[in-house]
């Protein structure tokens, strides 16, 4: 019958798709009565005519037959020894269950706890456990509340600073008479810089020097590579890239090659962070001073596409 595996799958699908299996389903009691031929003849015919068309009822019919049919040829018998062993296991299990000790008792003639005293002991234990749990919960909530308050205060201060900076910027652009587009560009650059400062404020201080590779800085063929001067205090450096169309690719591949075009580092399947940027970090000791080229590829499905190239000059201040 296993040769019909594919046919069985398709027949089930055809059955489900094309056959309505109409008529009322049989309840368990009705099915048992049907199997045991305890149904009146007209009801039996109605049940049969539904049964041969309804997969659900057919399964129930099989289950009922499996349960109620007597021994079939070739089936192993269940001996008295196994039944006695089964009973011993079950009664031990029930005794071990505290809720039924009062009914069975521990051993013959042993003291049997009254149900009331068991119930009382259980209630006391429950009450103690609940109180301890509530106390712990309360203490945790209090701590969380204090931490949240502190974070909110910090955010509010940063927000005030950001607003006053934006105001300053507006005033200064009015004075210099820049066009709207230029003003917007400057504002967004400043806002981005301030955002990263704000983000840095909320991050634990770990001596990371961050550099943003703006579109157009040190592109291939340009005379001016991006200059990265890592201060002495920075133990690592982070390169931040913001692709123009963040929604275009599912993830990115980044390659770093030296001036001999040897691959120094590569990472694949890097997603953008919620801000739409890619941050690549290196420990200070990982790179030596010199010229590098960073290549960015977008990855979608099974294809990759180059998105940008950035020429970098790395120097470590002493």
């Amino acid at each position, binding site marked *: 019958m296993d040769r019909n595996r594919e046919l069985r799958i398709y027949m089930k699908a055809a059955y489900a798709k094309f056959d309505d299996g109409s008529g009322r389903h049989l309840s368990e009691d009705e099915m048992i009565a049907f199997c045991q031929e305890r149904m009146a003849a007209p009801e039996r015919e109605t049940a049969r005519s539904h049964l*041969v068309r309804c997969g659900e009822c057919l399964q129930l019919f099989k289950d009922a037959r499996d*349960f*109620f049919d007597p021994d079939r040829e070739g089936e192993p018998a269940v001996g008295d020894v196994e039944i006695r062993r089964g009973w011993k296991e079950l009664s031990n*299990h029930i005794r071990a269950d505290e809720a039924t000790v009062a009914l069975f008792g521990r051993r013959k003639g042993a003291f049997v706890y009254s149900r009331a005293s068991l119930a009382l002991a259980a209630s006391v234990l429950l009450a103690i456990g609940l109180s301890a749990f509530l106390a712990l919960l309360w203490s945790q909530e209090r701590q969380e509340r204090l931490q949240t308050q502190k974070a909110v205060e910090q955010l509010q201060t940063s927000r005030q600073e950001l607003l006053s900076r934006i105001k300053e910027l507006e005033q200064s652009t009015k004075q210099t008479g820049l066009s709207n587009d230029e003003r917007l560009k400057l504002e967004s650059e400043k806002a981005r810089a301030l955002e990263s400062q704000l983000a840095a404020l909320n991050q634990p201080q770990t001596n990371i020097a961050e550099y943003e590779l703006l579109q157009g800085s040190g592109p291939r063929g340009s005379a001016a590579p991006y200059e990265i001067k890592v201060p002495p205090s920075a133990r690592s450096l982070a390169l931040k890239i913001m692709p123009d169309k963040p929604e275009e690719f599912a993830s990115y591949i980044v390659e770093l090659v030296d001036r001999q075009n040897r691959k120094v580092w590569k990472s694949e399947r890097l997603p953008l962070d919620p801000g739409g940027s890619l941050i690549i970090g290196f420990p200070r000791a990982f790179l030596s001073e010199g010229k590098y080229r960073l290549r960015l590829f977008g990855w979608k499905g099974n294809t990759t596409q180059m998105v940008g190239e950035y020429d970098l000059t790395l120097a470590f201040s002493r």
Partner: protein
Amino acid sequence: MDHPDKTTEELIREIKRELNMEENFRQLFERHYTQIHRFFHRKGFSPEDCRELTQETFLSVYKGVKGFRQESPFENWLFSIAENIWRSELERRKARKRDAPLISLDQQDTSDTDEFSPLAARIADPAPDQLDRTIEKEKLQKLHEALQQLPEQMRRCTELRIIHDFSYKEIAELMKISINTVKAHLHQAKKDLSERLKPFFGEIEL
């Protein structure tokens, strides 16, 4: 192990009234152990699993007997419990299969091929393409048409045999026909279906 003194209903009544619980429940256990064990054996479980599932059934009976209203026979209720335990066990096993450990798509897999290439490159796209869908639809349609060509009784016998894996005897009892008639129907159905469906499904066995 037979205790003709009390009927099952009498045992249940006394258990519900907490009279001589252990002895009454033991009698009930001995009376129905074989039936329940046999049920799980017929569902294809190993002897060890049959014992465990039978225990689980009786434990449920013990915990729920006070709520049993005796409106239908005790055996019907027992069947319901055993069936639920069977279905729960099937679900549990299916869930265990679904939670199988994940394999990285990037790892090299040399288990069944000479190619040294990442798994991801060799795992088929789960979304079938348009051609696969068309072929699938056509096969389904051809199958449905071939089945509809069969006389109704022959078709029902075929469905019971292939989809529900019924034996000749079970089909005969359900359809209220003789076993020889069932065999004749299936023999003819095999001929007709093979003629129409061999290019799609290969050799058919009934």
